[in-house]
C-alpha cells in the first residue's frame, strides 16, 4: 500500500454505487488532505522535522558522490533518489565524536544509537545509572510540540523488543533500543506496531455498537489524573533519592497526559485516509512493514498531527537477513566485512533497499499538495547513521542526507562537503529553523552554514 498521489484523491470509483447502504462511505471531505482545519497551524504553513536512522553503517564507496555542489552524481546506493535529486542534499564530513569509545572500550553500536540525536557520550552502565542527554527531536517537542495534537512521534520497525540477554558490551539495552530521549535518563520508546501508530494518529477503534459509557469514561479522566498525581507526590515523600527520580518519570507522564487531553479538545484527531485500512498488527513481510510505517509517518505530517518525528528503521546491531534481495547473511555480521568485496556488495544492497524505501516516502510527501507547495517543500528530513563504515565502527565521515526544502530554509540539490564537523551543528541549525531556542545540543559548536 502506498500513499496515493494527487490523482487518488478523486471521488470514489463508480462501481461502489450499486452497493447502496451496505457500504460505509467515508465523508467526502476526508478524502481531501485534512490539514487540521479546527485550528490552523501557528504562523502559517508548518515546518516539519524528521529524523530517520539506519543501523550498522553504510558502504560509503557506493554512497558518497564524487562531485561536489550542484553538479553531483548519485552513486548506486542513492540511485533510487534520482527523481528527487533536486529535493535532497548529501552532506559529507559530519561526525559523532561522542559515539567513540573515549576510554569506555567496546559498545560502538549502543553508543551510535544513543548518541545519534543527543550528541552525548552515554555513560557505560548495564542499567544502574543510565545517563545520556535530551535528543534534538525532544528538545523541539518540548518547546513547540504544543502546536500540534501530538508533540512528537517515535517509530521503528525493530521487533526485537523481547530480545533476551545482554545488549552491546555492557551497555543497558535502552541505549540500543532508542534514539529519542526526553531527558538524561528517560527514553521515548518507539512504536513498531502499525496498529498502535494508527490509533495514536486517528484514535482507537471504537465500535459504536459495542461502546458503552464512553462519555463518562472520558469525562472521568481528569479526576483520575488528579488523584493519581496526588498519589505519586505522596509516594515520593517516602522514597529515597533514586526512587524519587524514578517516580518523577511518572509525574511528568501524568502532566503530559493532561496536556494531551487538552490538545485532543483543541485539535480534533485527523481522519484516517480512505485508502488506508486500520492495520491489524505487524506485517510478516518486512518491506510491507517499512512501507506502512513510512505511510503512517507521511499521513502524520500531512494532517499536521505532529511536526516532529523520529523513525529508527532498525536498531544498531540488527542482524536481520534480507533474503528477499538475495542477502541471506545477518546485517551486523556482514557489516564486519573485513574488506571482502562480496560482503561489501551485500551491504550496499541492504543500503540500497533502505534508500529505496526512503525515496518512496519522499516521493509521497512530494505528492501531497498543501498551501505553499508540497509537504516535502515544507519539511526538513534527515536520513543517517552514527556509523559510517561498520567494519571499523567509524563515527566520522557519517552518511547523511538532508531532504526537503524546509519551507525555503534549505537549499537542496547539492553535495556539501564539510571539514570534520559535529553532526549536532546540523541539528542546531534545523532547530533554529523550527523556531526552537537552543544554545547547544550535545557537542555542538555552532550553526552549520551552507545547508
Amino acid at each position, binding site marked *: 500500500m502506498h500513499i496515493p498521489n494527487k490523482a487518488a484523491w478523486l471521488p470514489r470509483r463508480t462501481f461502489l454505487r450499486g452497493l447502496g447502504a*451496505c457500504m460505509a462511505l467515508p465523508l467526502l471531505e476526508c478524502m481531501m488532505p485534512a490539514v487540521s482545519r479546527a485550528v490552523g497551524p501557528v504562523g502559517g504553513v508548518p515546518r516539519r522535522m524528521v529524523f530517520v536512522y539506519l543501523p550498522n553503517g553504510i558502504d560509503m564507496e557506493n554512497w558518497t558522490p564524487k562531485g561536489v555542489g550542484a553538479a553531483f552524481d548519485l552513486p548506486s546506493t542513492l540511485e533510487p533518489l534520482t527523481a528527487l535529486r533536486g529535493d535532497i542534499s548529501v552532506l559529507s564530513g559530519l561526525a559523532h565524536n561522542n559515539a567513540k569509545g573515549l576510554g569506555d572500550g567496546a559498545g560502538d553500536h549502543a553508543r551510535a544509537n544513543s548518541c545519534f540525536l543527543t550528541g552525548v557520550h552515554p555513560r557505560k552502565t548495564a542499567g544502574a545509572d543510565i545517563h545520556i542527554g535530551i535528543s534534538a527531536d525532544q528538545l523541539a517537542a518540548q518547546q513547540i510540540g504544543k502546536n500540534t495534537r501530538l508533540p512528537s512521534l517515535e517509530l521503528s520497525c525493530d521487533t526485537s523488543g523481547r530480545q533476551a540477554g545482554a545488549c552491546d558490551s555492557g551497555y543497558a539495552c535502552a541505549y540500543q533500543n532508542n534514539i529519542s530521549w526526553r531527558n538524561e535518563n528517560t527514553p521515548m520508546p518507539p512504536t513498531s506496531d502499525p496498529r498502535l501508530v494508527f490509533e495514536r494518529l486517528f484514535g482507537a477503534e471504537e465500535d459504536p455498537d459495542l461502546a458503552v459509557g464512553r462519555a463518562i469514561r472520558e469525562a472521568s479522566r481528569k479526576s483520575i489524573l488528579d488523584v493519581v498525581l496526588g498519589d505519586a507526590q505522596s509516594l515520593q515523600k517516602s522514597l529515597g533519592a533514586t*526512587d524519587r527520580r524514578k517516580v518523577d518519570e511518572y509525574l511528568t507522564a501524568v502532566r503530559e497526559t493532561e496536556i494531551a487531553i487538552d490538545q485532543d479538545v483543541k485539535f480534533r484527531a485527523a481522519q484516517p485516509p480512505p485508502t488506508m485500512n486500520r492495520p491489524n498488527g505487524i506485517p*510478516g513481510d518486512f518491506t510491507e512493514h517499512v512501507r506502512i510505517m513510512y505511510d503512517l509517518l507521511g499521513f502524520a505530517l500531512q494532517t499536521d498531527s505532529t511536526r516532529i518525528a523520529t523513525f529508527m528503521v532498525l536498531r544498531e546491531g540488527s542482524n536481520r537477513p534480507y533474503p528477499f534481495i538475495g542477502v541471506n547473511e545477518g546485517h551486523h555480521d556482514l557489516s564486519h566485512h573485513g574488506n571482502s568485496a562480496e560482503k561489501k556488495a551485500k551491504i550496499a544492497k541492504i543500503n540500497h533497499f533502505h534508500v529505496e524505501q526512503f525515496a518512496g516516502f519522499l516521493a509521497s510527501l512530494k505528492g501531497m499538495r498543501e498551501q505553499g507547495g508540497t509537504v516535502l517543500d515544507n519539511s526538513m528530513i534527515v536520513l543517517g547513521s552514527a556509523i559510517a563504515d561498520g567494519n571499523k565502527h567509524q563515527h566520522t565521515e557519517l552518511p547523511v542526507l538532508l531532504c526537503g526544502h524546509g519551507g525555503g530554509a534549505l537549499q537542496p540539490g547539492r553535495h556539501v562537503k564539510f571539514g570534520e564537523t559535529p553532526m549536532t551543528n546540523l541539528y542546531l541549525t534545523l532547530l533554529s529553523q523550527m523556531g526552537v531556542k537552543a544554545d547547544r545540543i550535545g557537542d555542538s559548536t555552532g550553526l552549520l552554514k551552507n545547508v
Partner: protein
Amino acid sequence: MLPPIHRFLLGCAALAVCAGGARAAAPDFTGEVKPLLENYCFKCHGNGKKKGGLALDTFLAAPTAPTHEKDWNKVLENLRTGDMPPDDAKQPTDEQRQKLMKWIDLAIFSVDPDHPDPGRVTIRRLNRAEYNNTIRDLVGVDIQPADDFPADDSGYGFDDIGDVLSISPMLFDRYLSAAEKVMSAAILNDHKPRPEKVSVDLLKIEGGPATGSTPNSRRIDEREATANIDLPVAGAYLLKLAFSAKKVGDQPTQPEVKFDGQALFGLPSFNGTSDATEELKLKISVEQPGAHTLTFRVTNPIPKPETKNGKTITRGFTIRRIDLISPLQPVKAPPSQLKLLAPGRGQPTLEKAARAIIASFAGRAFRRPVSATEIDRFYWIYTQAQKKNANFEQGVQTALTAVLVSPYFIYREEIQPNPDSPKTTQPVSEWALASRLSYFLWSTMPDDALFAEATKGTLRKNLETQVRRMLADPKAEALVENYAGQWLQIRNLTQVQPDAKMYPEWDKPLAAAMERETQMLFENVMREDRSILDFVAADYTFVNERLARHYGISGVEGEAFVKVKLPANRPGGILGHGSFLTLTSNPNRTSPVKRGKYVLDNLLGTPPPPPPPEVPDLDSAKGAELTGTLRQRMEQHRKDPVCASCHARMDPIGFALEHFDGVGAWRERDGQNSIDPAGQLVSGEKFAGAAELRQILLTRKRADVLRCAAEKMLTYALGRGLEYYDRPAIEKISRDLAANDAKFSTLVMGVVNSVPFQMRRGEGDHHQFLDSGKAATAVNK
C-alpha cells in the same frame, strides 16, 4: 537445610549492630600480598608489560584507591576461576590464591560476610508480563492489555530491572486506556442487550495460495479458500469485510464470497489501476449457532498466466479483515463483576458499598493494607462520576480504573524509614516480601495465602513452606517463561532467521519445538526438584515428532512432547539443544565464538572481556585473504595478540560443538571440510569433543556452573545488577548447592533467604554504608 534468615535477622535485631562493627583483618599488603603479585602476575602485568591493558605495578603506590576497583574485581574473578595465571605460567598454591582473594575482598571491597550490605533495589514498575498476569489475577479478566505497551528495556540480561524500566508519556497513556479497557471488560455497567463480535484470524484461512499470509493480509486467487467460524447465536449478522485489489490484465478482479456454500450478493469488482481497499458490510442470516464457513475465490482468473521478471501474474485479491457482528443478546454479569462487587453486598448504603468495594480492590491492587485517606480519594472519583449521572456500576468502574493507574499499582514500592540514609538497613516488610516472592516465582501479585501470611506477620516464619507451595503451583510456569526464557535466551528463537537455502528444514514449528524443549528441561528440573546440573548433564530430553526427526531420533509421533534418552552423538543438557545451537549461529553458518561466549556468559558466569573498540582490519593487515576451514581461519585470526587472549577462552568451546550445524542438526563434515572438535580450555583442561567438554563442566568447572546459576537467578529475583558486596550471598548459595546435590529448591531457597532478597538499605553507596561504623540498624516492620 539452610538456617532460616529470620533467625539471622532476629539476631540482628537483638544486637542492633549489623552494619560496621569489628571486621576480619585483611592480609598485610607489603608483607604478604605484594610478593605474590610480583611473583605470579608481573611477568605479564607489571614491569612495563600490560597485557589486556592491565598493569598491576602502577597500583602499588595506592593499591586500595577506589579507581582500581574494576580492575581488582577482574583479577579476583580470574583468580577464582583459575583462568589466571594461565596454565603455561607458574601457578600459586591454593593457599596463596585464597590469600590474594581474601585481600581483595577485604582491603579493596571491604566485603565482610559477617556484616553484609544488602544493597538497594530501585523501585520497580511492572513489566509487560507482570502487568498482564497481575491484571488476570487481580481483576479476573485475561485480556493481555500490556501487549500494546512499548517493549520493556532490559539490563543485566533481564527485563525486570528497576533502573531501566522507565515510564514515558506514551506508556502512561497506554496505562490509562488499558485500565479503562480492563474495567469495561470486568464490569458491565448496564443491562442492555449488546452484540458480540467474531473476528476471523486471517492466518487460519485454509486453501488458496499457500504463502504470504500475515495477520493483516490473506491473498486469494481462483482456488477456493475457507475460513471456519464459530458463531455464538442464530439470527441476522452483519458481515464486515475489507478487501484490496486492482484490475489485472484486461479485466477487473471479481471476488466471490460464499457463506455456508451460498454466494453473497453485493460484492464490488476492482477496476482500479493500483491496489485499493474497500470495506463492505453485508447482511447474512444464520440459522443456528455453531460451526459455519466463509469461502473466498476469484471468479475470473487469467486463463494462461504469464511470467514477467520471474513473477507469475495472477488475478487475485487480498483480504484485510473479516468481522461478524451478532444480533443483540441479553447480557449476564461476568464472574469478574460478581467478584469485584461482592464486598459491597449487604452494605446499608450505596456510599458504604462503593467504599467497601474500593477498599478491597485497592488493598489487593497495592499489595498492602490501604489507609482511610486513600479510600477517600478513590471514593471521590466515584462521586465525581455520579455528578455526571453515572450509575453505581459506572461510578465503581471509574474509581477502580483510577486504582489501576495509580503509582501504587504500577510500581512495587518498598517503603523504609530513613530511605536516604546509607547506614540504615532493615528487613523488607512482610508485604513487600510477599510481592518479592510472587513476582520472582510467578511474575504476578501475591495470592490470598501469601496475603494471609503477611497480614498475620508469619510469612518469614513459613517461608520454605510457602516457596515449595509456589513452585508446585501452575503459576510457576512464569518462572520458566520469563526467567529461563531470558537466562537461556530462548525467547529470541522467534527472532532468528536462518538462511532458507542453507537450512530448508527450518520453519516456525521447528523453532517453537526447540523453545519448548528447553523450557521443558527447565520445568522438569523445577517440578521434580532435580539437580540444576541437569542443565548441563541431562542425558534425556523432550521432543515431539518434528524435533525428534531433526535430531535423528526415531519412534516419536505427533505434536505432543515425550521424554526420550539422548542419542549418543548429542552432548547432554542444553549444549545439545537445538535452541542454544541455533541462537548462537549466524544465519548461514555456525559461530564457534558465539557458542563459546554463550557458555562463558550463561553457564560458567565468566564472560570474556568485550572486544577492543576498534576491531583491527584483519584481512588487510595480513595482506591476504584468510583461507582454509572455519577453524583454520579463526586460528589465523587468533594469532593477532589483541584478539588472542579472549578468543582463546571462547573459540575452543565453540569448536567442540562444530558437529552441530547452524540449526543444531548433526553433521559429519562442514561442507567439504572435516571437523575437529578437540580443544583445550584457557584454564588448561583438554577435551576430545563435546562429550568430554560436558564432563569438564560437570567436574572441574562444577563450582563455576553452580555459582553462575546463583548469580543469574539472584539478579532476576532482585531486579538489579549484582555488586561486589553481593559476593558473600553468592558464595553462600553456591556452598549450599554444593552440599545439597545442587537441588533446584536449594537454589530458590538460597536466593529467597539471601541478605539482599530479605533486606534493603537506604540510598547511598557501599562505602557510605561502611562508614556508618557501629551505627544502629533499624529493624522495623
